[in-house]
């Protein structure tokens, strides 16, 4: 990062502003929750707000907005596998969503 004192002092101001923004978004998150949206919409909205907050933490606090290639590369790879891990297992059971699991009737014999 820059070692120029003036630039660093400006960064400190930025950190404060971004922190304030994060608090605002937190209030919005809680506020939206009061509306009791339908589950799919609620999930979408919540994730959009959380992703926005997370991106600000990553870009500004973690200085990711001007990091080096190797870091970007490693993180990109990680994000891809993260998404795979989150959603592919679901795909293997998605043909039973909504079917209640119940104790089977007496065995039909085999």
């Amino acid at each position, binding site marked *: 990062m820059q070692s120029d004192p003036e630039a660093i002092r400006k960064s400190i101001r930025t950190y404060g502003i971004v922190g304030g923004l994060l608090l605002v978004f937190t209030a919005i998150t809680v506020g939206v929750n009061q509306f009791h949206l339908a589950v799919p919409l609620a999930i979408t909205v919540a994730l959009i707000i959380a992703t926005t907050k997370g991106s600000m933490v990553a870009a500004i606090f973690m200085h990711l907005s001007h990091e080096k290639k190797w870091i970007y590369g490693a993180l990109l*790879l990680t994000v891809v596998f993260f998404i795979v*891990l989150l959603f592919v*297992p679901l795909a*293997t*059971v998605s043909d039973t969503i909504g079917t209640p*699991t*119940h*104790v089977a009737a007496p065995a039909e014999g085999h």
Partner: protein
Amino acid sequence: MEKTVTGTAHGHGHTHEHTHEELGFWRKYVFSLDHKVIGVQYAITGLLFLLFGFCLMMLMRFQLAYPGHPIPVIGNWFGADKAPGGIMLPEFYNQLGAMHGTIMVFMGVVPLAVGGFGNFVTPLQIGAPDMAFPKLNMMSYWVYFLGGVTMLASFFVPAGAAQSGWTSYPPLSDIATMGQTMWLFGMVFLITSSLLGSINFIVTIVQLRAKGLSYMRLPFFVWAQLVTSFLLLLAFPPLEAAGVLQLMDRLAGTSFFLPSGLMVSQKPLTVAGGGNPLLWQHLFWFLAHPEVYVLILPAMGIVSEIIANNTRKPLWGYRALIYAIIFLGFMSFIVWAHHMFMTGMGTTISAFFQVTTMIISIPSVVILTALLLSLWGASIRFTTPMLFALAFLPMFGIGGLTGLPLGLAPSDIHLHDTYYVIGHFHYVVAPGTIFALFAGLYYWFPKATGRKMNELLGKIHFWGSFICINCVFMPMFIQGLGGMNRRMYDGGMQYAHNAGLLKWNLMIGFAAWGLGLFQIPFIINFFASIKWGALVDRNPWEATTLEWSAPSPPGHGNFLTEPIVYRGAYEYSVPGAAKDFTPQFEPEHA
């Protein structure tokens, strides 16, 4: 039973370049920060665990060859809860099976291949004075050691060690005895050790390469370690999480993996339910599939170095090798559910995993083909390391090809959980990886000790092992195709369809015990050569890579002068050159 055998490899009869105060015994050989000492610690500990895991297997093979017979000579060592009257109980058989797999994979092969070879060779091959984080390196070893001790100790708790397979599937593993809890804690230690190590490797390879050592001049061994480290870094954490979840199920009464309505011994289990046993399988195999590439990639790296050196030719298709190994590493993350074709997934997602599994065979074939083509027109030196490296090629070929019917769901229906699977994966890991690791031990022994191992003993070790190991695993394909299930304590006797297949158990048993006997020349050779092996100079194999410019063994800080790299890693038989090899570190117009 297991003792720490530490840095015995620092040679005698060589002066060390110690530019710092002399360290005491403990700091020099036990709690050393030097990657070479740590590498030797990993290697020796790994070899001891390999031997232990091998002994577990020899016990199992006795039960399979002579079901219900008392184990000869040592049968009374195991106590009444494991083998009353020397006759193995089914529970003990299952413990042996689960722990054989766990120990070989996590405490034997990976620590030797990555912790041992990776640590010792990588900094030397890139011209670095040590790893990027020496303290982290030392910590990684001791956490591994702790994990290993935990695993071994689990044999001695009430009801013995883990016995739900190395795969620890719930619900069985959730309700299993105490040994399973120790397995979980052991795995947490082992995983943590690997994670810390992988960070160290990546930073070292990226940051500490010598002047002139661009990525495309790196020895293929280093590329293999780099990709392996990314696999460890990103694939292990889900298993660590899964381990925590299973610990919660076992200790905190949660139902992560316990479905509603589960009955145990005809009584309903008093848990909340609502869990999913498949969740464990997904998290487990998400690691365990990349893990098998962790097992093979360093082996491919070792074999490549030895082939180039003993053919006196550059490796064929260096770039293809690199792109293939990177692609292989990436694909390894999206094939895992081919271990789960029988779990009832829908046809679409099953097709997805079949396709990715077929695709991943391509880079494997590219690598194997490149190594085979490297032999074409070569002037082969049949040294012991080269014998093992050459044998690796067809053995890995058999292992890989036999994987294809397993990766296609229709044939997997017949072959899943049979001895065919055991034959397949052992071909890749045993005459595959372990042969490559032996090759590496013979090859780099002179660098580590300043002495060569004995060639005659090496050849006896090789030929005996090669013949016996094929006799162990080839019959398993026959048994598996005939429908013989794995993990059966009685060797399959209870099923009529196995009747004609049981005779193979006798042959496999004798081949396995023969294989054990042929390791004796190696063990004698290894330790005797440390003291009495023929003395060598820096570059006894006339190799081109950087580690051979350092003294044998290298001192603290490795290189006497700053290493500079002038050319690629495999400049053998350069037309017009005076010698048949031009090392990376030799300036132009030497």
